[in-house]
């Protein structure tokens, strides 16, 4: 709980700072100088430690086993996902996601096999930040959290609850707990190796590229893949 309180305090502080900081570029990112510093730090840690370990993991552990590990953690997540479905009034989805947990935990042997997807029960993506967004809470200032990466004030608060509800977090016994945390982190990073190589190639400025992509992604997730259309070409005129 102490950790949760500290994170809350930091987020409140960030929110207050956001209120008085002068905006340079994107109005959604009033804390850009601070965020850039954290982003550089994260990038350095990633390049020095996390990415090399994830690459090693991908080259040493066979694909089938990696999928099993990824599925195991994904199944644990589905519990909290189904709770968030219900909190957003999406009872049908909540039922589906809970059924996923039941199927995969039993027939899928503790979630190692994702049987439910083969049966047509598609996995959904929900968390508490999205639940807040669904009920109309704006995302607030963009934040780059140390190690955890891109977020916003709203999603940061969501993350406090997500962490409390995290089943891995609930497991007693520090060594087991930490091993599971590390494995999940490496497994998630390994799944993103291809995506991050594309970003390296695509971005002129990696910071702004990741920020824009992240904000669009969250907006899309809050609206379950169907966000209201934005005007795409301001001041556009037909050209020949």
């Amino acid at each position: 709980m102490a950790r949760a309180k500290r994170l809350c305090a930091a987020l409140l502080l960030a929110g207050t700072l956001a209120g008085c900081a002068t905006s340079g570029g994107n109005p959604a990112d009033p804390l850009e100088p601070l965020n850039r510093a954290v982003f550089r730090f994260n990038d350095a840690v990633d390049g020095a430690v996390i990415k090399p370990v994830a690459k090693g993991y991908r080259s040493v552990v066979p694909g089938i086993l990696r999928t099993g590990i990824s599925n195991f953690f994904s199944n644990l997540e589905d519990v909290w996902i189904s709770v968030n479905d219900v909190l957003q009034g999406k009872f049908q989805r909540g039922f589906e996601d809970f059924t996923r947990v039941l199927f995969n935990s039993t027939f899928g042997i503790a979630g190692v096999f994702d049987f439910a997807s083969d049966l047509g029960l598609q996995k959904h993506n929900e968390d508490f930040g999205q639940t807040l967004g669904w009920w109309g809470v704006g995302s607030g200032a963009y934040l780059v959290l140390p190690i955890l990466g891109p977020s916003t004030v709203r999603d940061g608060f969501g993350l406090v609850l997500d962490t409390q509800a995290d089943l891995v977090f609930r497991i007693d016994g520090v060594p087991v707990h930490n091993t599971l945390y590390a494995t999940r982190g490496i497994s998630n990073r390994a799944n993103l190796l291809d995506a991050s190589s594309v970003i390296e190639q695509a971005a002129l400025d990696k910071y702004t590229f990741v920020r824009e992509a992240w904000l669009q992604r969250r907006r899309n997730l809050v609206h379950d893949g169907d966000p209201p259309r934005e005007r795409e070409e301001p001041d556009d005129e037909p050209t020949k």
Partner: protein
Amino acid sequence: MAMKIPFYALFALLIPLAHAQQPVAPDVLVKSITEEVVAILKQDKDIQAGDTKKAADLIETKIVPHFNFNRMTRIAMGRNWRLASPEQQKVLAEEFKTLLVRTYSTALSNYRDQQIDYKPLRAKPEDTEVSVRSEVKQSGSSQPVAIDYEMEKTPNGWKVYDVKVGGVSLVTTYRDTFASEIRERGVDGLIKSLAAKNRQPERSKGGKA
């Protein structure tokens, strides 16, 4: 001499006309191009091994003709498009195209066995703008990634003007970068940055070269 032209050669002249009148439906077009490219990728060991040059050639011949890079650049530039002279606009569109092709070739060289599903097209016959929606199932992840192609009808058939991956628009993601470059260094500064980025060696498979 004119008599020696074979009769069937006349049909060759008619084909482009027929094509202009009856463009291939947008979803059919996306599906057929994707299937063709995927079939080549599955056979090509060089691209699988990370040969981005070869992937870029594949994109240039099979995919580029179906994209409207001018419009993509206009969207990414937003209101700054008017600040650029026609000459600058031409160079910008060319450099942006190169960057997108190189990015796409990096993505293609990462390609492994993936299953692609297409959702039914939600469009009226008279529509001139549609989104073709697809889902890619990746191994190792149970959640499919949505890939949407935003397309417009032109006299030369349907053209893609944006690609959205998981709801993230490839084109508008550049908007802030472009705007801040222009704010700090002007349109020519942006052109220089794009050109410099395009001169960098391509990244090999899986990350930093």
